[in-house]
């Protein structure tokens, strides 16, 4: 018999090795899947993992990786802080939607004014909207002991319906011939979030994601609050003696992750998506939870995990395009990748021992 023994600190070797092993395992299992479905497995794997980076159209798809990964990384960086402290915000999708709505509302209200203040005001409003939406579960937990997991999840559904209401009603484009959806902010220069340097894909959201990775890294490794967070996650009672106020920590973590998710929503509305529609929430908030875990809750890991997921999205599209691989097959493949990454993680956290050994 074998048994799992928890490691006191996560193994650095396995932290690097397990993602690699998981990707390799996915390639093998996925290759078998593609072969069964009648596609050439080698070409398929190459198309998904290699071509977006080095294929014939890579000069376009490489920047697109940043566009796709930025919201995931931005949201996941915030979530990971809470997850480390044992505070489970799984409603980032809702905070993302509300941030997009509040930030977008500033632009729609200002239209057609021009001014350098508009875009910064939108970013602040987006962050504030996400923060406020995140504070609801925080306060309900602090005041009434309501589970923040469940409240934040319920608020996703509410946010989705608020978005539909806005897209069909108050925020509908008055010049849109009755079609749902707001004005396109890409066509409103003062409010748009364009590519900053042509050909890089980098918009303000990418910049914000990079900043978020750095700041959260400093926060968890250098700042006193980072110590509180780690303490609360690993030994809640001891943390209390060390002067950590649990209520403050809950408010801080949910507020921070909400604000980052709200900013991500705003950057998407003002940039790549361009408008507020009922389909504003495209699942970034949920995918970011997976990214946070794949990144082992570490800022650098999150950066890589976000890029890896973006790679499979874009590679999956390429596989559809060049090999006519059905979207469903690509989705199954992505599911496999997540399963393997989540499963192999056991090796970072546990040692495998034969029973009887000590």
């Amino acid at each position: 018999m074998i048994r799992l023994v928890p490691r006191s600190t996560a193994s650095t070797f396995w932290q690097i090795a397990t993602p690699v092993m998981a990707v390799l395992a996915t390639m093998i299992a996925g290759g078998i899947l593609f072969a069964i479905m009648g596609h050439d497995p080698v070409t398929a794997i190459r198309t998904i993992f290699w071509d977006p980076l080095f294929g014939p159209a890579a000069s376009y798809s490489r920047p697109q990786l940043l566009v796709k990964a930025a919201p995931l990384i931005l949201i996941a960086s915030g979530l990971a802080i809470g997850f480390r402290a044992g505070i489970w915000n799984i409603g980032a999708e809702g905070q993302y939607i509300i941030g997009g709505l509040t930030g977008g509302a500033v632009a729609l209200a200002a239209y057609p004014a021009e001014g350098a203040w508009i875009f910064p005001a939108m970013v602040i409003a987006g962050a504030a909207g996400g923060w406020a939406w995140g504070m609801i579960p925080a306060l309900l937990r602090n005041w009434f002991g309501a589970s923040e997991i469940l409240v934040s999840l319920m608020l996703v559904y509410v946010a989705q319906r608020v978005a539909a209401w806005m897209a069909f009603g108050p925020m509908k484009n008055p010049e849109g011939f009755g079609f749902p959806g707001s004005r396109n902010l890409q066509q409103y220069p003062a409010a748009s979030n364009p590519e900053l340097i042509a050909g890089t894909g980098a918009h303000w959201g990418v910049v914000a994601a990079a900043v978020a990775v750095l700041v959260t890294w400093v926060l968890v490794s250098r700042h006193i609050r980072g110590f509180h967070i780690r303490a609360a996650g690993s030994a809640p009672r001891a943390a209390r003696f060390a002067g950590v106020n649990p209520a403050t920590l809950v408010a801080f973590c949910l507020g921070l992750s909400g604000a980052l998710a709200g900013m991500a929503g705003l950057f998407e509305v003002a940039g790549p998506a361009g408008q507020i529609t009922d389909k504003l929430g495209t699942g970034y908030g949920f995918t970011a939870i997976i990214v946070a875990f794949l990144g082992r809750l570490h800022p650098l890991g999150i950066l890589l995990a976000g890029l890896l997921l973006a790679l499979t999205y874009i590679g999956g599209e390429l596989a559809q395009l060049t090999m006519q691989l059905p979207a469903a097959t690509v989705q199954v493949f992505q599911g496999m990748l997540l399963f393997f990454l989540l499963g192999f993680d056991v090796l970072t956290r546990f040692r495998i021992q034969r029973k009887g050994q000590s």
Partner: protein
Amino acid sequence: MIDPLSIFLLLLSASTPILFAALGELVAERAGILNLGVEGMMIAGALAGFAAAYATGNPFLGFAVAALAGAAISLLYTLLTQVFLANQVASGLALTLFGLGLAAMFGKPFEGVKAPPMPDGPFGINWIVWLGLLMVPVIWWFLNRTRRGLILRAVGENHEAAHALGYDVHLTRTAAIAFGGAMAGVGGAFISIATVLQWTEGMTAGAGWIALAIVVFSSWTAFGVLAGAWLFGGVTVLQLRLQAAEVDVPVQLLSMAPYLATIIVLVLISARQTYSRKAGGAAPGSLGNNFHALR
């Protein structure tokens, strides 16, 4: 005027898929498992059930196969969370993604064909609707009046203590997850076999997510789940019914209402537990946490 009985009859069948899925998730959550993969398990059941009903011409066999399919795909989640001790939330999300893709992939041959007709049950109400209603007291009885139900709740409330008492936490949870998968599968199959009579990609259209909300609304009780399923199904039925009767309704605001009600219920029961120290009613203590025996 709108006849309440007619609304109730609409409600019975409209709420059946979410009732099944939510009852299954209830049992899983009482065992401490927060499985966000309900949507993935439902769609697996919707396809497998439809395929079996179509191939054999027997809709009831279809529901049986749907239960097996839902339980089978839930094993992946079990493997991740019980063996590899992966995070439950992330694993559930992955299961939903995987299930939707898998069903779409294997569903191709079943597009465009029609399910065999289903005989009506008593009072012209579908047999599966009756089964769903029957499952409510059965699950209540199981959770509250049987030894195994007690063990399951103990595992969900405090897995360390349950383990110390000698109960097998992983085995209990594995069974609860599989039961949840089977129920979700039947719920999904109700959509394909009894409601639409066809298979189409993505046909559960978010029902699994509603089921998750219902369990919270229910305060983790079987009869609460029934009330929740009727509330959530009822709001949809009522707003459509009012539209048909040409009453002006704010559709988006109305469809938001049950979720707000759920949050309010959750806050009330949590507050009761926090301030008056009355046990029961709030979320299971170990919900969402994985268990690893140190000894």
